[in-house]
């Protein structure tokens, strides 16, 4: 019984951890470069930091590909006030999410 509970918990942790909820900026940058997009490294790095610090104050991080590229601006805008985001911070988070999603 104890082994079954431990095995079930281990499976849950492995399945959660196998998904990268905040992929590294470098990976997003390379993906963007391959697709011919202009990348502001500093903005993407700031966006990632804000994403993992501010958003988890209220909820765990969503999987970025669960929502479309068109969905994300509306989602971020709906929560910007609650997260005390300045306009530049909101733009940085959105840029990071779009770039991270592009590599999926």
């Amino acid at each position, binding site marked *: 019984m104890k082994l079954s509970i431990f095995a079930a918990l281990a499976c849950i942790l492995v399945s959660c951890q196998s998904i990268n909820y905040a992929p590294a900026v470098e990976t997003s940058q390379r993906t963007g470069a391959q697709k011919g997009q202009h990348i502001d490294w500093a903005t993407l790095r700031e966006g990632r930091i804000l994403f993992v*610090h501010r958003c988890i104050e209220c*909820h*765990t991080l969503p999987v970025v590909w669960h929502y479309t590229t068109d969905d994300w601006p509306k989602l971020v805008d709906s929560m910007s006030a609650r*997260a005390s985001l300045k306009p530049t911070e909101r733009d940085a988070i959105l840029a990071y999410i779009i770039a991270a999603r592009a590599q999926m």
Partner: protein
Amino acid sequence: MEPGEPRSGGFLTAGAIRRSPFLVLMLSILPALSSFAGVRHFTFLYEAPTSAPGSFESEDWVTWQRTTDPARSSEIAFRHEIEIGVTDKFQVSIYLADWFYTSDQDHSGFKYSDSALEFIYNLTNPVIDPIGLSIYQEYKGGDRVFEWESKVIAQKNFGPLVLAYNATLEAVWEGKNLGEREGEFQQAIGVSYEISPRFSVGAELLHEFVLPKWSDEEEIRNLFIGPNVSYRRANWFVTVTALAQATDSADEPDLQVRTIFGIGL
């Protein structure tokens, strides 16, 4: 704060409370309807992330405790917290007034307990770092009581799953000339799973080592465990935890339920 322990400074009678308990409960949460708050997944544990800089948050705590050994008593404790985000990694909280209503065979009534100041500094992030860490310090002072509490907060997020661990060392000076001393070491573990963007469920466990006069001769150990649930919507949240005592310690609550209401500005 020990349940049923007599304190001075009462200002409300039991009669008034019996006549309008609902009114008193509503008054206790009204201050929460005016400020911003980050969501809590737990009520007996702290989480590693700190509030955004420049944010002002308000949270109201209501803790009900029932004790039956050695005598039957109940207590409802209230805390009103204002949380201020100073930097991306540092927050300060002010507990304006901690007060409680206690009821036992000998007496009942409301009493002021203390006010407190709390500091939390975030070191690492629970998502992108191997483990999220924060350090916590609280100073609490009241009528013939002074408490100093230090805490290490650890947290790791696995997607929708949040695991948290707090290690706490508390020192209490109370009584005449603050001559009575007591220490306590506590470990707390919490797990919370986000079922939906608005709803989380989980469990919390507290393990206490009570050290009267900083001595472990009596080997007082308390273990509490129970479920929690958290709901958040728009700019507010409510989290409830119910803990049952798993040990057989006298003068400790058999059951305690804590509710934290938080709201954003």
